[in-house]
């Protein structure tokens, strides 16, 4: 009895033990494998699998560009990995660049991060000038400059840009006794002071309780972006405290807030979206092409035909992206070809027609998809022509690696001024102390 019981027991116990070891070993090896790099070989001339990392609704896949490329190049298979927020995407990209592993063959880079990439990390990226097939001549010069390193390497090809106009509500302008025609409104906005004067007329005459502009931060962004030097000087040093652009923009924003012209929103917050949907403000001071997507998304059915785009007194660029090819990739040749094709004028024009991402390629601006483009939500607004005209006036900006942090903190200072009742001096002091802390190594 006893022995039989044992013989029955033994194997099962051994099995359990083996199992336990097995499970532990599998889990442990899984942990270790996470640290390893995966080098899948790309054959020459054989089938190639390309991966591309993007963020948000980047549009390549949505506009059918991958499918088109795979039809043209049957040996290529493209897989996209998309992360919804750039903030999360860039963190992952930074970590992977630092480890030089886990990178996709092609990676998107937002303009806010491009200075970081052309700086310390530029060695991790492929230099497009080394590839003869890649034509970089069709891009807007300032766009190309942004992705060029000090020693002339081009590490990113531009996808889209964000040339700005001023978006305004036609119906609210009419109610306040202001002209609503695009040409006439554009003529009113001779400079930013004139823009605020129109605001005072609007505030005095509007029958409802709509405000003139969504936020003081929006005014700041619109004004400061027209200056070549904003947060960094041309020597690449942080200089926001002495910058003429920042000072002018700050003063005008404070003026707008103190005159009660602003709805004191934080752009892109839920409250801002509701305010946009409810017509709580009449203008968006810095309104790039992609902002029309937000207007459409929040405005819904009720908002069809209410908005129009006037010319900005100082058009500038807000947003836009690049694609780059990491050096660590195993299919660099093919990846470079794909990146060049995706950013070629024809594809950029298609992306604009399908997704409203405005081309960074000057050659694309000549194509009928752009010149004849009108917006069906704004109804018959010739957005192609409006934004092409704006794109021509965009200054070449000095951009620095910490632009985003600086701008975000200045915007926060304006929120504190608008919502928490700080004076202009108090708000500015708070910006400086926040930034001293944020920028100190």
């Amino acid at each position, binding site marked *: 009895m006893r*022995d039989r019981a044992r013989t029955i027991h033994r194997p099962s116990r051994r099995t359990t033990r083996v199992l336990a070891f097995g499970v532990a070993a599998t889990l442990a090896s899984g942990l270790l494998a996470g640290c390893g790099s995966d080098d899948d070989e790309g054959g020459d001339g054989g089938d190639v699998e390309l991966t591309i990392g993007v963020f948000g609704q980047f549009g390549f896949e949505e506009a059918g560009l991958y499918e088109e490329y795979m039809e043209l190049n049957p040996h290529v298979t493209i897989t996209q990995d998309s992360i919804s927020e750039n903030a999360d995407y860039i963190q992952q990209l930074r970590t992977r660049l630092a480890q030089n592993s886990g990178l996709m063959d092609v990676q998107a880079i937002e303009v806010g991060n491009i200075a970081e990439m052309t700086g310390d990390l530029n060695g991790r990226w492929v230099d497009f000038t080394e590839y003869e097939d890649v034509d970089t001549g069709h891009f807007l010069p300032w766009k190309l400059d942004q992705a060029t390193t000090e020693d002339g390497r081009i590490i990113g090809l531009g996808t889209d840009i964000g040339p700005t106009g001023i978006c305004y509500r036609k119906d609210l302008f009419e109610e306040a006794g202001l002209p609503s025609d695009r040409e006439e409104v554009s003529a009113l906005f001779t400079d930013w002071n004139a823009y605020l004067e129109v605001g005072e007329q609007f505030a005095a005459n509007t029958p409802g309780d709509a405000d003139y502009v969504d936020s003081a931060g929006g005014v700041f962004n619109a004004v400061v972006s027209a200056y070549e030097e904003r947060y960094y000087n041309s020597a690449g040093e942080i200089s926001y405290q002495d910058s003429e652009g920042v000072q002018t923009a700050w003063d005008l924003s404070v003026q707008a807030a103190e005159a009660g012209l602003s709805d004191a929103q934080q752009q892109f917050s839920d409250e801002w979206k509701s305010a946009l949907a409810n017509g709580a403000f009449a203008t968006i001071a810095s309104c790039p092409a992609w902002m029309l997507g937000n207007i459409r998304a929040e405005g819904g059915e009720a908002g069809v035909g209410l908005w129009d785009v006037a010319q900005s007194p100082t058009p500038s660029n807000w947003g836009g992206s690049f694609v780059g090819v990491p050096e660590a990739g195993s299919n660099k040749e093919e990846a470079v070809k794909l990146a060049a094709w995706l950013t070629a004028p024809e594809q950029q024009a298609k992306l604009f027609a399908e997704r409203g991402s405005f081309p960074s390629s000057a050659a694309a601006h000549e194509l009928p998809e752009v010149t004849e483009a009108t917006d069906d939500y704004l109804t018959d607004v010739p957005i192609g022509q409006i934004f092409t005209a704006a794109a021509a006036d965009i200054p070449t900006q000095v951009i620095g690696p910490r632009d985003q942090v600086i701008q975000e903190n200045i915007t926060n200072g304006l929120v504190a001024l608008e919502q928490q009742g700080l004076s202009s001096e108090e708000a500015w002091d708070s910006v400086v102390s926040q930034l001293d802390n944020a920028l100190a190594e």
Partner: protein
Amino acid sequence: MTTDHASAAPPDSSGGAAPRHDSGKTGKKSAKKSGRDFSARELKQAERRSRWYRWDLKYSPYAFVSPFFIFFAAIGLFPLLYTGWAAMHQVSLTDPNQMEWVGFENFSRLWDDEFFWNALRNTFTIGIISTVPQLAMALGLAHILNYKMRGSMFFRVALLTPYATSIAAATLVFAMLYGRDYGMINWALGVVNIDPVNWEAGTWSSQFAVSSIVIWRWTGYNTLIYLAAMQAVPNDLYESASLDGASRWQQFRHITIPALRPTIIFTVVVSTIGATQLFGEPLLLAGSENGGAQSQYQTLGLYMYETGWFNLHLGRAAAIAWAMFVLLIIIGLIYWLLTRLVGKSNGEEA
């Protein structure tokens, strides 16, 4: 934490393996008694087998518990120590491999860091205004639920549902409720002619808003813990108390509360740890890592996140993480001392 002997099950030192050890020996003896002759090879084999048995008995328990410790070492201990190591360096998130030794500078600069103290203060005040009402309400609710009542199971489940929702979902809904222009709370205030409150912008109002999410989410959980403890209180005590003419309030004060003391201490400790690490609610209230334009509700966890992942200073963020860790240990020691003192003053063995 608590030194309640009744609830702590002392681990059996030699464990459940001992009886099996005996059975192994008996097995070997009985095999020898069977009187068969053994060749040298067989003996050797038996010897080896018995050695295997011994090792099996001796070491396999360690193998069985090892996964936990391997995992703890890999994802608990190692990060903790590595964070401490990183805190001694200047590291940028843009290039985490480039570490420059700075010693304790990251810690010493925290003394002069107004934003660190601001975050610490906020963590403390939010901790107080979320934990105190939460536990008080939980105690009251548990007392009510402890009575015989219809549908008590329904109420118990209903109380636990907030705990089962995700922080993100709950916070987004609360953020909409607390909206300045389109929030439901300001709308309700408007109905009774009270001026709208800019919840997110004010220091107290925003901290109250964050706390309310915590309270909403955790009250039910604590209620159930109290309820379970209350049901373990012998009914005779209440019976004799009511025979002596004690009112329900007196019963609650003189029977329920003393009986629940270890449980209350447990919930206070757990809530304090949760409050110190508060992160998701303040992050999602306005969807920014600043905790408000003036950092008016930025907690320590949020400040660490901002420093490391937005301002890119990983070394400084690591120092903040360690400061939080040390803070929790100090709080733990204080609670431990308090429980000892409370136990002694009641004449109990501490």
